[in-house]
């Protein structure tokens, strides 16, 4: 099918998720009763807060491993770093760097494990990643709830549970709160813009664009296209996949730090639960699929998803008389979007296989006829 001949229907099916989302969000703005200025300010904040995490999903998608639902492994590594930063009372942005330094080796290690596991589950990386995140969550809890303060000495008694060991359920991150955002907060047309955070995100985008052009980046694309062909071409498939996941996990670690410094407190045992859910929903809302994603998808997605997250609780309150309706609605939409894009993708790839098969069959039949004519 040539790109010119795209009908309205195929165009819609390609951007179905984006269009549906746009319609719902725009429709919900007026019932929410929020001012446009408030919405835009919130969006700028959330863009800084979430984009980094969403970008962490890109490389595994390039490598054909689908959405990395195991990215919360990186988030957990970042949280462990933060706990130590608070424990050692390293304040300000230095605290974040400290947390990153501690989180980094953990993230690399977890990413390596994740890559190994996913190589054993080729073809079902997504569901495996999802379960792996649960599994590592168990180990994280064991570590933070039982080891910290008993086996691992902690200096700051105020973050320890009253029973003497284990970290409190919520950790106040007062010492590092918005330390990155406020290094240079610019007033731009009445809006507060966290310049440094946005610059870091921009630098990451540049890195991703550059990385795609390197040998390793090209290898990843090749592996993503067809593992067998890549293997035949001499690309170390399994190693490339592991590297993609390690980078994704490390980025998720840094992303979680940016996310948490903006939030200002850490729900020790469930801050990472929904990291992959929000990130995956965002990139899919932005028009990405399981195999194709780009940097614009990230930003479109973050803006659209969070615009809806901002307006839906109040819209629900005003339309149905219950804020919970809006709260459930936005979760429903988030999960629904992931389900819908997975379905659309699987459906399309099946159709593509079917088409190519029938092409083959048609071709063979035609060839047979020609030969028959000649004889």
């Amino acid at each position, binding site marked *: 099918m040539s790109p010119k001949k795209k009908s309205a229907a195929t165009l819609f099916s390609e951007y179905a998720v984006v269009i549906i989302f746009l319609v719902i969000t725009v429709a919900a703005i007026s019932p929410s009763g929020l001012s446009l200025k408030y919405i835009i300010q919130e969006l700028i904040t959330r863009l800084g807060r979430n984009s980094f995490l969403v970008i962490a999903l890109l490389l595994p998608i390039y490598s054909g491993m689908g959405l990395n639902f195991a990215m919360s492994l990186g988030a957990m590594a970042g949280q462990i770093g933060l706990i130590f930063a608070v424990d050692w009372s390293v304040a300000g942005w230095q605290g974040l760097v400290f947390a990153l330094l501690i989180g980094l080796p953990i993230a690399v290690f977890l990413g390596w494990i994740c890559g190994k596991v996913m190589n054993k589950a080729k073809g079902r990386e997504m569901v*495996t990643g999802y379960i792996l995140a649960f599994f590592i969550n168990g180990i994280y809890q064991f570590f933070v*709830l039982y080891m910290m303060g008993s086996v691992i000495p902690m200096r700051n008694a105020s973050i320890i549970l009253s029973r003497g060991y284990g970290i409190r359920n919520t950790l106040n991150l007062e010492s590092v709160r918005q330390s990155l955002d406020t290094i240079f907060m610019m007033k731009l047309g009445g809006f507060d813009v966290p310049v440094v955070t946005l610059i870091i995100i921009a630098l990451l985008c540049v890195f991703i664009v550059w990385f795609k052009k390197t040998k390793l980046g090209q290898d990843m694309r090749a592996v993503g296209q067809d593992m067998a062909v890549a293997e035949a071409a001499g690309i170390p498939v399994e190693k490339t996949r592991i590297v993609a996941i390690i980078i994704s996990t490390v980025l998720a670690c840094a992303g979680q730090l940016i996310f948490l410094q903006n939030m200002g407190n850490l729900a020790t045992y469930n801050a990472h639960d929904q990291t992959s859910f929000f990130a995956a929903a965002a990139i899919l809302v932005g028009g990405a699929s399981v195999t194709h994603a780009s940097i614009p998808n990230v930003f479109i997605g973050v803006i659209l998803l969070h615009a809806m997250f901002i307006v839906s609780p109040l819209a629900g309150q005003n339309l149905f008389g219950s804020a919970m309706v809006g709260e459930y609605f936005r979760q429903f939409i988030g999960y629904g979007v992931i389900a819908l894009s997975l379905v659309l993708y699987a459906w399309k790839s*099946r159709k593509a296989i079917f088409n190519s098969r029938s092409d083959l069959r048609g071709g063979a039949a035609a060839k047979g006829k020609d030969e028959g004519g000649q004889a």
Partner: protein
Amino acid sequence: MRNLKTFIQEFGWPRIIIFLFLVSLFVLAPFVGVRLDASFSDVLNRFGQYAILVLALVPMIQSGCGLNFGLALGIVAGLLGATISLQLELRGFWGFFGAIAFATPFSVIFGYFYGKLLNKVKGEEMTIAMYVGFSFVMLMCIMWLVLPFNNPTMVWGYAGKGLRTTITVEGYWLKILNEFLAIKIGRFFVFPTGLLLFVGACAFGMWVFLRTRIGTAMTAVGSNPDFARASGVSADKMRTTSVVLSTFLGAVGIIVYQQSFGFIQLYTAPSPMVFPAVAAILIGGASVNKASMINVLVGTFLFQGLLTMTPSVINSILQTDMSEVIRIIVSNGMILYALTRKVKVSK
């Protein structure tokens, strides 16, 4: 010696470790002051409570749809049945079987469309099933708030509408199966005859079903779709049937669970109920594409035994509650193990 080796290979190390761990828990129990009879009673209870939810996974595994991470749909159908039964103030066996009867049409409808959807996405069923389940549970959260239920035991007291997050079935059909013909031995041991009879009947029904014409065709579709097609079996139809059956059993399973547990849990409760069921059948020796009644019964017993025994025994030894962490690691570790194993039967 070789026999032992192949047995271990087939059964898998994780299962053996879990089995030995459970045995050691039972051995240790009396020494740390945990009553064995009470523990056995608990294990049997919880075994019956969960067994049908685990059984619900069998048809879809057999038909090649993989682990039904979308079991939440069946659970929601069961919740609808249970809430309608309570709304109509049905009591006793009427209430229990009424709940199943009301849940049936919902489960068939949900299962039918869910099955149709899964037929369109062959090969990606598990991830999609998970997210379809999640989003449906969220949609139903809104429904629980706005559906016109008005039995005062079910709705929020101050608003007079919107269902509570947990609704007690006390006074309706609490422990209706558990106490049917229950045998009491001593002060602490109760044998839940009715519950286990019901579970046994369901498992036997499934065993018989898998040996009927439809059941065999279903298994054929799962183990060799091309062969099945060659012998005139419609793969899509069989898969849809298996999904409907799985969803229906999910509905029955949650109602059985509720009558024993005592509460109907609404809103986001169905989503996390799926993973323990999946873990249980895998611990019992099932793989992503093969499951038997033995897997269901052994798996549920081992997993629930573990969940019952670890809090009481480990807590007595270590003076701390690590059961939750152990549960998370064991159940997800087991699913992970099954997902990463090389599939022997080619699809």
